[in-house]
């Protein structure tokens, strides 16, 4: 598939950057003229993935989070592919981590719904991880509002 446009972003795993990551990806996506709902879906999914990097991948440390966002023409409607990568602790059991309500956090303040939210708000979700090397989350959203009817 032919990319229309692409951007790369890297920033430190500070929680104040959660809002920055949402705003930056939403702003890049604006050129596809998404609906308010499509934009909110992507902002939510990005927020979940970036929070995972901060809370889990780089727990008790500060590392770099990398985002690559590529826009494609798509078959019937344009698509946005967002890759969010860290070089943190990695996930031992990805399948387990993706189960709704599963969390390693013991404070009771994390719902364990991050991946479930990404899955329900995006069209595709792929998670690859290597323990002590890092995790890559790839998500695709079809911008249907601009598709051929």
């Amino acid at each position, binding site marked *: 598939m032919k990319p229309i446009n692409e951007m790369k972003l890297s920033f430190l795993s500070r*929680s104040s950057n959660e809002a920055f990551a949402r705003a930056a990806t939403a702003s890049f996506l604006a050129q596809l003229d998404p609906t308010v709902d499509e934009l*909110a879906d992507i*902002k939510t999914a990005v927020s979940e993935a970036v929070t995972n990097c901060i809370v889990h991948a780089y727990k008790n440390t500060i590392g770099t989070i990398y985002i690559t966002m590529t826009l494609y023409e798509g078959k019937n409607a344009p698509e946005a592919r967002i890759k969010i990568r860290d070089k943190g602790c990695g996930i031992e059991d990805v399948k387990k981590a993706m189960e709704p309500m599963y969390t390693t956090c013991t404070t009771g*303040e*994390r*719902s364990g719904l991050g991946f479930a*939210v990404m899955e329900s708000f995006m069209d595709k979700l792929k998670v690859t991880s290597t323990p002590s090397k890092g995790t890559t989350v790839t998500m695709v959203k079809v911008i249907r509002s601009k598709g051929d009817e």
Partner: protein
Amino acid sequence: MAVKLSISQDEIFAHLLGDIDHHTAKEMREEIDAAIHRIQAKSLTLDFSGVEFMDSSGIGLVMGRYKLINSYGGSLNIINASERIKKMMYMAGMDKLAIINDGGKVR
């Protein structure tokens, strides 16, 4: 300021302001929890009318406040949540922990 609290006797009304993510949820949590402990609250109302964006950290915020208010024998109410936020609340089963109300007075 991420949250504005109104307290009367053993009831807390918390008007949440702005986006709720892992970063902002911390400040909201700390202020609300301090008030719950101080007055041993029997009722907590979370008003979402000032919240445009929320990720699953908002669910964690609701879950955690439920546990705390429940430990004082109190109850939790959620009011003025947008359709989108309500969808996430139901997805996470928050309607089993809190009373999710559509129309509430905005103070």
